[in-house]
């Protein structure tokens, strides 16, 4: 398994290449912004008919991460579904797969702005949850000082000689961490764009996802170098 160990709030975490977060001491796997059913929602509104394979693609990566880490608890950090109307059809098509993944684990669906209501699936449905002193919620709450959230789809760009890398990333400082979007059909917001930049402290660090994970201990320094 491709992963990178790092410390956040005095605990050891693992950033996985896929964009999932594993917390070994609590045996928790966290994924954010799955956006299941995005292609269907776009189609329903009369937009383009995107390849309808993104649920499978996302699920197959999740399947891999779940079998690699075999966690007691899985937290889906909100915006798991692209809107409430797609919940039913996604569940209908992929129920067996989802049920198999959920079997024997505590599965927590956190509410997101796209999926604010209860989902007709197993597991528990929560606005937010606190595990061993860390808050898990969809959108960062500035008053919290110990928090893991999603929502913003952070990414970071680095220019080197032969290419510009632009990868979804984990963003963190000494109070909060923001997870990259896990869903296949998701774009990203640069770490230095509003409102991400004001949310994070100047000491913020990042871990770039992808086949090889890169740890950038100081984004400010990277930014000053013009890269």
């Amino acid at each position: 398994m491709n992963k990178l160990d790092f410390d956040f709030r005095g605990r050891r975490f693992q950033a996985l290449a896929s964009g999932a977060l594993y917390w070994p001491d609590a045996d928790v796997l966290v994924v954010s912004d799955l956006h299941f059913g995005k292609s269907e929602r776009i189609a329903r509104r009369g937009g383009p008919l995107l390849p309808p394979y993104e649920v499978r693609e996302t699920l197959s990566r999740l399947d891999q991460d779940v079998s690699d880490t075999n966690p007691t608890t899985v937290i889906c950090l909100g915006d798991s579904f692209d809107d409430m109307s797609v919940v039913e059809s996604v569940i209908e098509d992929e129920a067996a797969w989802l049920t198999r993944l959920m079997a024997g684990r505590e599965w927590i669906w956190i509410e997101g702005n796209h999926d604010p209501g209860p989902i007709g699936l197993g597991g528990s449905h929560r606005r937010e949850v606190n595990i061993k002193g860390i808050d898990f919620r969809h959108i960062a709450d500035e008053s919290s000082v110990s928090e893991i959230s999603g929502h913003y789809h952070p990414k970071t760009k680095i220019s080197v000689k032969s290419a510009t890398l632009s990868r979804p990333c984990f963003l963190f400082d000494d109070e909060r961490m923001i997870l990259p979007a896990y869903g296949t059909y998701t774009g990203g917001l640069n770490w230095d764009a509003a409102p991400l930049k004001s949310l994070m402290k100047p000491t913020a660090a990042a871990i770039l996802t992808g086949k090889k994970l890169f740890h950038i201990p100081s984004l400010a320094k990277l930014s000053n170098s013009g890269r």
Partner: protein
Amino acid sequence: MTTLPEVFQNWFNARGWSIHPHQQSMLDRADEPSLLLIAPTGGGKTLAGFLPTLVDLATNDHKGIHTLYISPLKALAADIKRNLRTPVEGMSLPIRIEDRTGDTSATKKRNQRADPPHILLTTPESLALLMSYPDAPRMFASLKRVVVDEIHALAESKRGDQLMLALSALQSMAPGMRRVGLSATVEDPTAMAHYLARHPDPCPILMADPGPDPDIQMLATEEAPPWAGGGGRYAINAILKQIDAHKTTLIFHNTRAQAELFFHALWLANSNDLPIGIHHGSLSREQRERVEAAMVAGKLRAIVCTGSLDLGIDWGDVDLVIQVGAPKNVKRLVQRIGRANHRYNAPSKALLIPANRFEVVECIAALDAVKAHDLDGEPSGSGPRDVLCQHILIRACAGPFYANDLKCEVQSVGAFSALSDAEFEECLQFCATGGYALRSYDRWQRLMKNPNGQWQLRDPRSTQMIRMNIGTIQDTDKLKVRLKNSRGGTPLGEVEENFAATLSFGDTFLIGGKIVRYEGLRELTVEVSKNATKRPKIATFMGTKFATSTQLSNRILEMFETADWAQFPNHTAHWLEQQRQQSQLPTKDRILVESFAHEGMEHICVYGFAGRNAMQTLGLLLTQRMEEQGLEPMGFVATDYATLIWGLKPLKDAAPLFAENSLQDGFEQWLAGNAVMKRTFKTAATIAGLIERNSPGKRKSGRQTAFSSDILYDTLLKFDPEHLILKITAEEAMKGLVDFGRITEMMTRTAGKVDLLRLDHVSPLAAPMFLEMGRVPIQGEGRERIIAEETEKLLNSLGLA
């Protein structure tokens, strides 16, 4: 013979004009369903196209729109409007003429739909947009004639295919509509006629007197051109002398970057302060308009330009055209020369400036071709189906349609006349359901059948998105460049987003002839400041690089066979003779491969003469083969005529590399994961309506929601490899950037016969290859590794890892 009405005759007489024979013929044959006029620049082509319309409108009552004029350029439509007003106002004809382009105001556009003018001047994109409104049949019912100007230019791109599809729909709304095409000299008039006409109607061709042959020469300079590279800066002083000796000179370059570099160098050497301007597609509209105005007013002695000045806008008295760099394509050269001297019956004057030693050979071949009236052209092939998909969606916006009616219309378009029913059906299915193997959009189809069996949009909200997406010109995402100042920034032009992404604070580059310093990115604008350095750090931004045409390549090979250097300047003759003695000159019917060691590396140089894109593809394929054979290739560089590959082990046997099917098999494997495919996919998917075009407002508000087209490509390739858009992508890549057709052509020409020559040292012909830009490291896992290493190194150097 149709006699000219008296009012026309008087007007002609008053100006001391007489009607040209081809103008008379156009009048006589006004009733032909389709007619193609081929006439040189300055031959009164436009008036010839409009004369039947003007005469009809002057003598008969007509309500509503009479004639639709389509040009490839907005500026040309505006120019024609001005030119037509002269005769119309001069004769006080009751004719209303208006143009309609992307620059026309919304109010004006609405009024035009309600009360159309007699003559509407527009572009393919604006016409497609008009066709998407439900009132199009009412608006065009009275249409009698369509004039397609500069049809040769439109036929080179998908814009022409879109236009011809629109004409097929117009023909159904106005069955009596006649088509007229106006073209510069083309290599295959019959093909152009087939392209214009309603299939299978005949389309007669009218050839105007081509006028005298151009006076065209290669500029002799005291200095020999350099071994490699482009730009022609060695000839600056000779060029300045030419500018001084002529009234107005156009200086054409093949790429924007070269035009910029040249313009900059020209100014440094311009001690007489001759007024010289620059004009190319990356400059801001304000900048271009300023240059155009100065040109029309006769205030400029020379303009450094690219293809953006290629089309027939009347810039006044140009008496010399200079082409810097080999023209790559004889037809384009002839059309460029036509820009000089708009007086009919006077020969145009032109000079060729080869940018490097090999281009001397290319220029001589091109001069021979011009003298022999031997134009080149690639067969344009069948109509692209991404454009057809867009056409189907546009038709759906206008209202319900029967599949069979639309299919018949489409098959009446020359370029789509070979389209099978099944291929049409596939496009229709794509528009309706997405065309996926997994049928999942039953409830949310884009097009549905209504109770009458007609297809229509399921959701009327689709129309807005479809209309915003109309067009086939793919602007790679461009960012505006502004000079940072207190007044919000003077616009300088645009650069590709990819280029902007490589800039770091303090980098300098050229735009609009100025060296500027990169200050930063703000919103979607590149902010720069003035910079006084002499040499820009980064000189290039992208732009089209043309490949040398098949025909020109063949001419070069024929010249090599005769080994007669009489026409050549000494330096070049000597160089070629050295090659003949030390190695061989490449021939038409065999592939020459030289092998030699140089600076501790093994090299092979493959002379394929298949044009830059194909030679690049060949480099990728051969290195893949060599890797399999354990030859450890490290990289390659390609030009229009050869590919140079370097690596660790010498090549002992070249035949297996070129064995039958070997290239084709490798090609298919390699193609799928290639960056060129992803770029081609983005274009096809955008045109076909699978990806929404990025509109500036949208990008600002919702960056999180926009995701890369690469994700769609990867997903389709994994789950639905037979999907229509992937098929279209492969078709387009084959003829476009990958240009596999030219490799096939090379294999057929040589029957795969290879001569492998082991040399003691670098051959004269291979030597310039070492100076070429654009070296490509081996792709694939290796490249991933290099990027990872560079990133690691960067982070380390910043103390970040």
